[in-house]
């Protein structure tokens, strides 16, 4: 028994074969038909049927024999972007070369083996014929439905030539990792206006003004709650109503994107809300970076991330990468981390707090952040303010949405923790 178990374990152990062959469905049907013809031929002793049987066997053997040499001399180079966005098509480019000196490779299927915890279709391309020494480039449009890591481990060059009864394949190791960013939407409101409204309506201290970093923005009518110090008396006298001198922060505006990726008790759709939160955060980050502002990122979870504010296009992938690799399977509140972290004064700015749902921990974290960084606007999926601020693509359209692959295996989770 033990021996049998060992044998079974040995036979089924994971191996990474570099060459292989498998019958296709039509090949199995053909094999069945050939067997029947052979049996009939032997039984009935009909020579012509026997000859037909021989031809069928010949076709099968020819399919088995031909094509190996072509596969051996194929080399492939992948040209892929470092990152992509969920739901947005991108091109994977493959440069395929036939290094054989005199054999033409035919009917080649190029499959790039994509790995993740979810079963995702691997991109496939087809080459009709590749002459000796010839190089062809093919573009394969591809689209990902999930965020996280997308790993391409190897190419599989397959050929069913000539009759597609058997598919021979060869694996070429070429590993590459892409990060798929969360789905991006668009902002309905200008974040500067949103933040200014936040400042003016919340009666909080204007940190920018305190630092003398304000500049004239315009004149508008007085609204309840505006500071009386900003009344433009001359214009008020001229127009007959109170006018306010509106100021704004200088070009170096600074925001914080706070993402609470916790699973909150009572949330009916934690995975869906987390994706919305991350998409909204990514959309916000991209929008404000496009406007030239500085953005910092605070994310709880595994691990806690605090990226100081930065600007420019080079900062964008760093932030999006952190959002893309965020896991939601934790209950780590944000408030203790905020309280214990030292916050330099130059990091102060308007904060946008994205959370799946509202609870006490969220309120505590908001209070802590307000004390440390500045005013906070809480954005929760489904809330009126969230919809007013951000428009996300319909997530339900991508029905094959899967969990983030970083949580796929315990080992991966442990590694992510580090």
């Amino acid at each position, binding site marked *: 028994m033990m021996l049998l178990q060992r044998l079974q374990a040995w036979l089924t152990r994971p191996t990474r074969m570099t060459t292989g062959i498998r019958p296709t469905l039509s090949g199995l049907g053909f094999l069945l038909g050939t067997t029947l013809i052979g049996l009939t031929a032997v039984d009935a002793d009909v020579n012509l049927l026997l000859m037909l049987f*021989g031809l069928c066997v010949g076709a099968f053997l020819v399919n088995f024999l031909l094509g190996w040499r072509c596969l051996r001399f194929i080399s492939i180079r992948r040209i892929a972007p470092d990152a992509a966005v969920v739901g947005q098509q991108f091109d994977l480019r493959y440069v395929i070369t036939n290094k054989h000196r005199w054999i033409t490779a035919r009917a080649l299927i190029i499959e790039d083996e994509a790995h993740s915890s979810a079963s995702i279709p691997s991109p496939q391309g087809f080459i009709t014929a590749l002459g000796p020494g010839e190089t062809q480039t093919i573009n394969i449009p591809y689209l990902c439905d999930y965020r996280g890591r997308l790993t391409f481990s190897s190419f599989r060059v397959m050929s069913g030539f000539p009759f597609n009864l058997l598919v021979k394949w060869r694996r070429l190791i070429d590993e590459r990792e892409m990060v798929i960013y969360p789905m991006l939407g668009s902002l309905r409101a200008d974040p500067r206006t949103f933040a200014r409204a936040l400042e003016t309506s919340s009666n909080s201290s204007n940190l920018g003004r305190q630092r003398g970093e304000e500049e004239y923005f315009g004149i508008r009518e007085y609204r309840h709650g505006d500071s009386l110090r900003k009344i433009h008396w001359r214009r008020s006298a001229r127009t007959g109503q109170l006018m306010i001198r509106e100021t704004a922060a200088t070009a170096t505006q600074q925001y914080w994107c706070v993402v609470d990726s916790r699973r909150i008790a009572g949330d009916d759709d934690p995975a869906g809300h987390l994706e919305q939160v991350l998409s909204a955060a990514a959309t916000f980050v991209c929008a404000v970076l496009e406007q030239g502002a500085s953005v910092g990122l605070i994310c709880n979870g595994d691990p806690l991330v605090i990226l100081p504010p930065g600007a420019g296009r080079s900062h964008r992938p760093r932030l999006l990468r952190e959002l893309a690799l965020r896991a939601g399977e934790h209950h780590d509140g944000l408030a203790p981390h905020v309280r214990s972290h030292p916050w330099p004064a130059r990091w102060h700015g308007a904060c946008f707090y994205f959370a799946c749902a509202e609870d006490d921990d969220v309120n505590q974290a908001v209070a802590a952040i307000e004390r440390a960084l500045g005013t906070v606007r809480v954005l929760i999926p489904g809330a009126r303010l969230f919809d007013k601020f951000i428009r996300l693509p319909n997530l339900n359209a991508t029905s094959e949405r899967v969990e983030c692959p970083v949580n796929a295996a315990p080992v991966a989770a442990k590694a992510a923790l580090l």
Partner: protein
Amino acid sequence: MKPLGGLHITLICLAVLNMLPTMEVEQSWGLMALACALAVGSLVWFSRSGGKPLPSVAINIFVLTALLFLLWEMFGPHEEPSVHIIDLAHFVALLACCKFYECTSYRDAGLITVIGFLLMAIGALVSASLLFAIVILIDLTFGLGWLIVFHTVRMEAQIAERQQRLVRRTTDGTNGHVSTAPATVKRLVGRGLSRVVLVNALYMLLIAAFIFVLMPRGLYGGIFGRMHDLVPGAMTGIGDVVDLDQTAIFEDPTPVMKVQFERGGRLIVDESFEPYMRAQTFTRYYNGEWRRTPITAPRIVPPTKLRRPRSFFGRALPDGTELITQKVWLETRGNGKIYALYAPIYIGSDDLRVVKLDKRDFILESDNSRGAAHYIVQSANERNPDLAAWLKDYESDRSEGESKFTESVKRFAREFAINVGDPSDINQHERIARAIEAHLRSSEYEYTLRMQRVPSDRDWVEYFLFDSKRGHCEYFASSMVLMCQALDIPARLVSGYQGGELNVAGEYYRFRQKDAHAWVEVFLPNKGWTTFDPTPASTVRDGGLDNSFWARTVRAIDFLKFRWSTWIVSFDRETRKTIYDEVRLWLANFTQEETAPRSFGELFTSFFYGPSGLTWWQRAGYWFVLLLFVVGLVLLLRVIIILSLLVRERFGKPVAHERVVPRQPMARFYDRLLVLLASKGHVKPNSSTPREFAQRLAATTDDLRDLPEYTDWFYAAQYGRQEIDDRRESRLSRFFKLLRENAGFGQKSRSNDR
């Protein structure tokens, strides 16, 4: 698939072509014409409808009609017994025709291909003609090319469709049908497709040849064997009536049969040899007709293997009896006549299951009336006096009544005999018969096929003898028989084929319909029934061999048909054994002391040159077989190598590859470390290794003095695949926390830069 594209039209042509062998078995040319018309009609339909298939209602009606036709063929009233497998083939062919009208996708095309393949398999079961070989040849060239192009285009379309689905692009609403650009076909054809097809076809033929020769035979008798019995043999023949009122006799070149004659174990290839293949005998003449009473001969079941007969109707053959063996391949269907030289005393066949042998006039007949048939007959040499005397015991006058002839003919016969001999003396019968034969062969009578109309009040033979003196073989033979019978000399008219056309390469005689002939057999006391041929034209072959291009082409085709029949269709266990024996005999030369080669060079030369005594074409064949053998060995070796590689891949140890090792999950902490260090201003240059980078930072920054140790852990996890234990994990966590939360911890300073 693009309707009316090259692939579509080629597919329909190939499908119609594959119907041919099964249609040919029962000469169902009407059905074949219908299939062709339906195929053309489908193309017309697609061109008119803009590529739309026929409505499904019409297709269903088509299928229903085909089903009704099948039932009628199987159970309807027919003159001949129904052969169900051929009926099924007709039904399948009609189904293919129905499918022509809705061939718009690759699936439909694949279905039609499968139907064509099925028809070909049925054809292989029931057909034995060269037509099957021609169809196979076309399938192996054009068909193979079509199949390769079809599979390639289909695969490309499938992958394109899959990618389209993947990126959420909807198809063009054609239910998943993706039209393929003709550029793919052009790319394929332009890349030496013909060479690929040729190589594939040669490989397939080679493997088929090996299997054909090596497969065991003679194991039949099961379910398919019974099915095989349903497929009858067929024969050709001459009618039961010889009517002299035939004015439309013409030279019909339709082949009837091929015969190989063998005497004493050697083939007869001699132009002076004049075979008379007998079919029928007639004794009673009445009003211009020779009509034969159906025989009530006993039926025999011919064995499948040829043996030398030891007895004949229970009596032992006389010693020294020389037999002429005839291997006969009948080609066209007929009415059950079996041809043989005089006197057939043994018959064996695979195809003829029941044969009647009339021992009085040695006529063979069979009940079967379909398809081609092969049989072997052994006849006694009639010139052997001992055997003739032995055979005489079996022969007697027929009791079918006397012929009715005119007084003028009787008078003419008697007057003619006065100057030759006494007819009442049986010993003078031969002389009288020879004289009559010579008289009719004289220049007084002329052989012609252009007959004059005989007055209604005159007898045909009488008119021929006294007035016209022009006629064909039946007139000459009838005149002689009647003259003999008028003198009370037993005589009969024999119909069959005479002469034939010798094919020197194939060492066989080809008999055509134009070789049909009538001659005379006279009963001589000491010799039995002896052949006389009073027809002048029959004594000379028509101008010898015709060497015109057309005649040579026809002979070449005949030769191919003959070889197809003898080498392929009739190949059996005995033939294989003969081949084995010859090969073994030849190989034995290499081991026997007297004939063994003395050196390797001599051995190689002997092996390469082949057996001595071969003709040039036999030697070319030997070299071809040798080449096939070598190629076969190479293929076999290649199969073994590939299989062993696959087995090693599957069951062997995983092969270590020279490649970039991907980031192991446990080593991903290093990426996080680099990010945190970068946030402190320590960006790792690509030019330095992790260890160099760690050592440089440890040397310049006190906070990072443990960095080399962490880097070693990274190496162990990444390349040694070691786990990070809890102790290390907690240390790393603390270190990361310091980097994250302590703004001054590990901060890059200006002094560090320096």
